């Protein structure tokens, strides 16, 4: 198995609606930026791996439809799609494909134009048609039940959740590619309309149009392309259950087990101390509390304390979501891959105004489906 690095990336300026481009043209913007970031040309790329959630645009076979924009014309082109985890599946799949030795320079693309459909309607089609779909299907209901359960267990409050929204919004101000770039106060979050108890409007991620492209390289070429490649140290994922009722809300079992596997592979024993930055796919505020407990950063019920103490701020012990995270930007099929691009940006020192100084190790997650979780760990040192 080859060792694999991320050598560059590109993102679109994420926003609520990109009427000026169609899907392939949107994708192309990210691809061009990723190529520019690495100095590679389309001809240097061995293959393309792309993904989104087909039903958000109503175009099946986007890998074909977008071929002019995605760089895959007359090259091996592969699609991976796994719902909300699509972006992180791409990040892991890209790693696997290059590690296999079949590709030396692989272009990995995640994208979505959420403005083009009714997100809840489209997500409903991902639910089981005999059971959940007739009853309570949709994007937000399951997340609200998870949040409610977590609050009930530990006395966590809406104010605790609002605190992480404030953090992510502040961080997004320094990320020129973020979608929602507007400061917010705890009171504003608490006053926003209730969508599904306890989730309020500003507890939730936005719906975003955007694309992200990441270039993976094998150990044979990575150091020739990038002065400071970001090496992938570990990847793991867990996809449990089909029905909403099967989910064990706390701790989120998929993230718990995937992270323990990834820590073991990367030799990490104390994640809070050993990891320098995290980009988490946390699409609603409460996830930024309970899921950091599942990741082993805090004891059960003590996620809020870690956040209130400032440990996850830009100048804290372990900055979380320097990019502003998913609370500020969510082009679904790109979202998990943006986390990977951001981690690579942090390690290679290319994160710009939201750079965390001295990042040596980073972790990203993906979330989707029926509480599925993906994990990647990255390092500056070749494994």
């Amino acid at each position: 198995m080859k060792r694999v690095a991320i050598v560059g990336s590109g993102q679109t300026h994420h926003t609520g609606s990109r009427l000026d481009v169609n899907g392939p043209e949107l994708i192309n913007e990210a691809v061009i930026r990723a190529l520019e970031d690495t100095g590679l040309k389309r001809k240097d790329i061995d293959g393309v791996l792309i993904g989104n959630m087909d039903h958000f645009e109503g175009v099946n076979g986007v890998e074909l439809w977008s071929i002019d924009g995605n760089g895959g014309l007359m090259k091996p082109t592969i699609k991976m799609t796994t719902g909300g985890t699509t972006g992180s599946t791409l990040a892991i799949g890209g790693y696997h494909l290059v590690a296999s030795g079949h590709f030396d320079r692989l272009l990995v693309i995640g994208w979505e134009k959420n403005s083009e459909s009714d997100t809840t309607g489209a997500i409903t089609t991902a639910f089981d048609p005999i059971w959940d779909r007739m009853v309570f299907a949709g994007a937000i209901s399951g997340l609200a039940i998870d949040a409610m359960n977590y609050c009930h267990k530990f006395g966590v409050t809406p104010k605790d959740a609002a605190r992480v929204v404030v953090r992510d919004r502040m961080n997004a101000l320094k990320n020129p590619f973020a979608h929602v770039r507007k400061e917010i106060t705890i009171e504003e979050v608490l006053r926003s309309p209730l969508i599904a108890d306890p989730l309020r409007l500003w507890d939730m991620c936005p719906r975003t149009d955007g694309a992200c492209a990441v270039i993976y390289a094998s150990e044979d070429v990575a150091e020739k392309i990038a002065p400071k490649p970001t090496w992938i140290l570990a990847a793991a994922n867990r996809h449990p259950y089909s029905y909403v009722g099967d989910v064990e809300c706390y701790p989120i079992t998929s993230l718990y087990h995937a992270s323990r596997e990834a820590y073991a592979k990367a030799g990490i024993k104390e994640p809070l101390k050993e990891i320098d930055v995290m980009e988490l796919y946390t699409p609603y505020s409460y996830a930024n509390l309970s899921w950091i407990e599942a990741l082993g950063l805090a004891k059960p019920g003590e996620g809020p304390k870690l956040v209130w103490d400032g440990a996850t701020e830009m100048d804290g012990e372990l900055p979380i979501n320097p990019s502003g995270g998913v609370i500020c930007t969510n082009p679904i099929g790109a979202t998990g891959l943006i986390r990977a691009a951001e981690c690579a940006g942090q390690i290679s020192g290319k994160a710009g105004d939201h750079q965390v100084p001295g990042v040596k190790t980073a972790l990203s997650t993906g979330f989707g489906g029926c509480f599925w979780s993906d994990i990647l760990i990255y390092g500056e040192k070749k494994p």
Partner: protein
Amino acid sequence: MNSIEAPETLLWRESRIKIPYAWAAGETASRFFIEIRDRKKIFGTKCPSCDKVYCPPKKTCGDCFSNCGEWLEVGPDGEITGFTQALYEGGAHPVKNPVGGLILLRGASTAMLHLIGQCPLEELKIGMKVTPVFKENRQGNILDILHFIPAKQNHG
């Protein structure tokens, strides 16, 4: 969907998926359709490196990634490079048993998929010259061209 024949002990659920979509044409396709809608003119875009004229127009050349920023008027006449008639029912067919053809417009390097009308199927040939019939009330989409018809017919 196949009709289901099952014993009474096996149940199924019939439903339909109905989700609204609003697809962005983007700047490039918008300009193309506005030219047809407002001026009955058909344009392609040219790749400066490959010298290909794309019609339908492309913003970026998929091969060399150059920006295809140069707009050239093409057609309106062209020739058929392939065709067939659909004799089955298709949910998206604009007419019953449509004759679909690939139309290479004069000056273009790539063909456009469209309908062919006013010609008995047995008279259609690959290489036949055709010309577009524009709709009276044009909405800014691909069906602002009603169909292509044999060129000689259009000139009487």
